[in-house]
Structure formats: structure tokens, C-alpha cells
């Protein structure tokens, strides 16, 4: 298959996805694809439905309506096969505090039934510059170190699809830069598909091949960053974000 065809095939297909919680619609009939090797940015103000969407893609929340397919398989019926090839990292998750960094990574590696566990841990610890904290208890990590740990656990399993919910929040600029470079390089070499959320608009522009803008659970804009900026007649993505967020929140 030519490389361009391979790039064009969607590995994630979301159709008419809706989630209602007792009268409140968190995600409202959204459809999108993520192609192989693509980074799709999911933008939107707080409460727009980004995290609920990611939770549905991870099988943690059951959709009210709609379907999620990954690698051509339905998540509702092929959960184990799909989740073996998917991982996630988020500022909002944690790892067991009483385990060391290395112990936590070992448990995750066993959970995904990885081979050559020690070698993989050595590799990821080196790549994310975590050598100095690998034997440290997780409860003693700073928030930035915790973000690196959750990113390490996600990358270590060599997923084909990665969901990153604000992965660089609370990290210092130097490590943010290193993580972004690492993710870009890793994504290119492995053909990884990424769904990325961030409140840092510059980071979003840099990282994403394409962006979806969610507002009150609906997709209100979709395209590359320059396309969206042009469509809304703004100077940059931050201005688009502010305009749409203020529309959602009202005057």
C-alpha cells in the first residue's frame, strides 16, 4: 500500500457520538476520524465535552448514542483487542502513590502483557529523563514528574493510538519542549495516531495536523489551524478560542 493511502486510512472512526447525563447533553452527535499517523487536536472551553469524549473512546463511559470503531473494530464488542493497542495520559489521573515509579511501570507493563519489560522501562525512563526518579515513591513526585510518569506509562506500551488530555500541563517549559519533540518524533517514526487536548493554543497549533473545536458538546469548527483562524477572521487560534468560549459562556 502506498504511504499516502496508509496515511489516509482512519484508525479511529467516531460516528454520531452522543452522551446524555440525566437531561444534560455533554457530547452532542459528533462524528470524526483520526487517520493513521495523524495528530488531531481537540479544542474547547471547560465543559465542552473533550474529556467525556476521550473517556468514551477509552471505554470508561458508555455512549448514549453512536459508535466508536478503532482499527476497523467496534469498541463495544472488541474492547480488549482495541485497548491493547491504545493508551492515554492525562493531568487528571494519578498512579498508586505507595509504589515507586519503576514498580508502577512494571505493573502497567504486565497489565498490557509486554515482553522484555525491564528493557522497555530502561528505554522509556531514559527517553523521558526520569533516571533520577525511577526508584522514588510516586507520592513524592512533583506534579511535573507525575505528568512524565503518566506519559511514560502511556508510551511504554507502544500504542497505535494515544489519547493525551492536557499532557504538558504543569510542566516547566524545558521539559514541555522535550516532550513535544519526543512525541512528534515518536509519532513520525511509529506512525502513531494521537488525539490531543490542551489549553495552550500555541502548543495546539504546533502539534496538531488538524483541529476539532467543541462547544457545548457539538463540533463547531474543524480543519487545520490556519483554516480555522481564517474562517473566524481572527489573528490566531487563541483569539478563535476566546471568541467561541465567550459565545458558550455568554456575555
Amino acid at each position, binding site marked *: 500500500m502506498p504511504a499516502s493511502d496508509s496515511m489516509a486510512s482512519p484508525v479511529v472512526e467516531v460516528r454520531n457520538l452522543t452522551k446524555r447525563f440525566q437531561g444534560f447533553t455533554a457530547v452532542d452527535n459528533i462524528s470524526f476520524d483520526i487517520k493513521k499517523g495523524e495528530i488531531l487536536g481537540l479544542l474547547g472551553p471547560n465543559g465542552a465535552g473533550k474529556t467525556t469524549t476521550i473517556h468514551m473512546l477509552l471505554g470508561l463511559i458508555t455512549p448514549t448514542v453512536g459508535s466508536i470503531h478503532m482499527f476497523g473494530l467496534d469498541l463495544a464488542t472488541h474492547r480488549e483487542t482495541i*485497548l491493547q493497542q491504545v493508551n492515554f495520559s492525562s493531568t487528571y*489521573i494519578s*498512579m498508586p502513590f505507595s509504589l515507586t515509579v519503576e514498580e508502577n511501570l512494571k*505493573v502497567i507493563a*504486565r497489565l498490557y502483557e509486554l515482553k522484555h519489560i525491564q528493557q522497555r522501562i530502561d528505554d522509556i525512563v531514559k527517553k523521558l529523563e526520569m533516571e533520577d526518579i525511577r526508584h522514588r515513591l510516586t507520592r513524592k513526585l512533583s506534579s511535573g514528574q507525575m505528568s512524565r510518569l503518566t506519559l511514560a506509562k502511556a508510551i511504554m506500551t507502544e500504542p497505535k493510538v494515544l489519547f493525551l488530555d492536557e499532557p504538558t500541563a504543569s510542566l516547566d517549559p524545558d521539559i514541555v519542549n522535550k516532550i513535544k519533540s519526543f512525541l512528534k518524533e515518536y509519532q513520525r517514526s511509529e506512525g502513531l495516531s494521537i488525539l490531543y487536548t490542551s489549553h495552550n493554543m500555541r502548543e495546539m497549533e504546533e502539534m496538531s495536523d488538524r483541529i476539532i473545536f467543541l462547544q457545548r458538546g457539538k463540533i463547531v469548527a474543524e480543519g487545520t489551524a490556519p483554516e480555522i483562524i481564517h474562517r473566524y477572521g481572527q489573528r490566531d487560534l487563541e483569539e478563535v478560542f476566546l471568541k467561541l468560549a465567550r459565545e458558550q459562556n455568554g456575555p
Partner: protein
Amino acid sequence: MSLGRILALLSRHMYLYKRSFARLLEIFYWPFLDLVVWGFITVYLEKVGMPVHGAVTFFLGALILWDVLFRAQQGIAVSFLEEMWARNLMNLFASPLTVGEYLVATMTMSVLKVTAVGGLMMLFAWVFYSYDILLMGISLLPFVLNLVVSGWIIGVLTTSIIMRFGQQAEVLAWGMVFLFQPISCVFYPIDVLPPVLQSIAWMVPPAHIFEGMRAVLTTGMVPVTHLLWSTGLNFGFLVIIVALFYHTFNVCKDRGMLVRVGE
């Protein structure tokens, strides 16, 4: 069902116990204190000549078996709490781990806990009171196994409630089993209960188990009727409770509570 994923979850708890003093206390300290208090009571009863046949065997045996039930239940419920406190449920259930594998892992954890606590209590009872529960023989084993299953049932029920109602229900991990204690007839025969409670008690597997244990102590024979009743009831309740757990898990996923449990 993947053995690798079950072992992964077990290793997570082993790491935890390896360096947690509080969790080791749970295995060593509290069972030891229980045994000391009840041991002195039985010594006192024997001294004052209370007409309780084989008081030491009766009370210490019952206490050790009660702890089997208690720790089997805790092995499941507290394992869930550990994940909830560590906000680790998302990591687990966004992985290929299935609900069935999760349950098997926690049930195995409860067996390990029961083995550790039971073994230590037997040792303490032998050292301090010269009481050897093993003298009751192999006939006690099927009752012990049934007691572990009863502990699983109460543990899975407790976990379902905690998952559904969150932190406000976490006290049940320690208290739930005591709801069953009066009708389990741990330290007294079932005919002590009022007739209404007797009818209820006969529907509870531990009541048959403790009646059976007393029968083993007094006659040396295995009371087959009690054994069959406890096994049958355990099997029926286990099927119902596991189905309830799956249902609760799906309800929590539907309502978005799985990602918020513990908040």
C-alpha cells in the same frame, strides 16, 4: 481470561504490602489483639467453671473462622478502595483488563490475605493458649473453603455498593460483614436466636458453616446437610452477586461514575 493481567494486579498489591506498615498491621496486629482478648475470655470462662463445653476450642475456633470470613471480605473490598484512593481505576479499566479478571485478582488477593491471617492466628493460638485448630482435622477444610466464598460474596457486594455510591460508602468495607455476624451465629448455636431470625439465618451460608464447625467439634463427624446447604447457598449467592457487580459496573460506566469514583 488472561493470567498475566491477573498476576499484574496481584503484583500491584504485593508492592503495596511490601512497604506499608498500616497494611501489615491489618494482617498481624488486629488479629493478634482479637486472639488475646478472646483467649483471656475463654481462660476466664474455664476458671469460673462456666458450663461451656470445650470453651477454648469453641471460642478460639470460632474466632479464627470468623477472621477467615472477615479477611476474605476485606481482601476484595479494601483492594477496590486502594484503587479508588490512588485514583487508579481509570488506568485499570482503560487497559485490556476485564471485569472478570479484576474480580479473580481480588478474590485471589483475599485468599492470600486469609492464608496469612489464618496461619498467624493458628500460630498465636498454639503458642499462647496451646490450642491447635488442626486437631479438628481435615473435616473442617470444606467449611473453611465455604467461608472464604461467603467472604467473597460479602466483599463483592460491598464493592458494588462503594462503586455505586462512592466515598460515602467506604466505611462498609469494614462494617458490612458485621451486619451478617448476628445471624451467622459465630459464637452461639442457631437455636439461641428468636424463631424469625432463625428462619433468616438458615438462608445465610455462614450460619450453616458455624453450625457445622460446632458439630465437627462435638461429634468429630462432618455434618453433610450443613455442608451441602452452605455450598448450595454460596454458589447461588455468588452467581447473583457477581451478576450484580457486572450490572453496577455497567451502570457506573453509563452514568460516568467510574471515572469519578473516589472524588
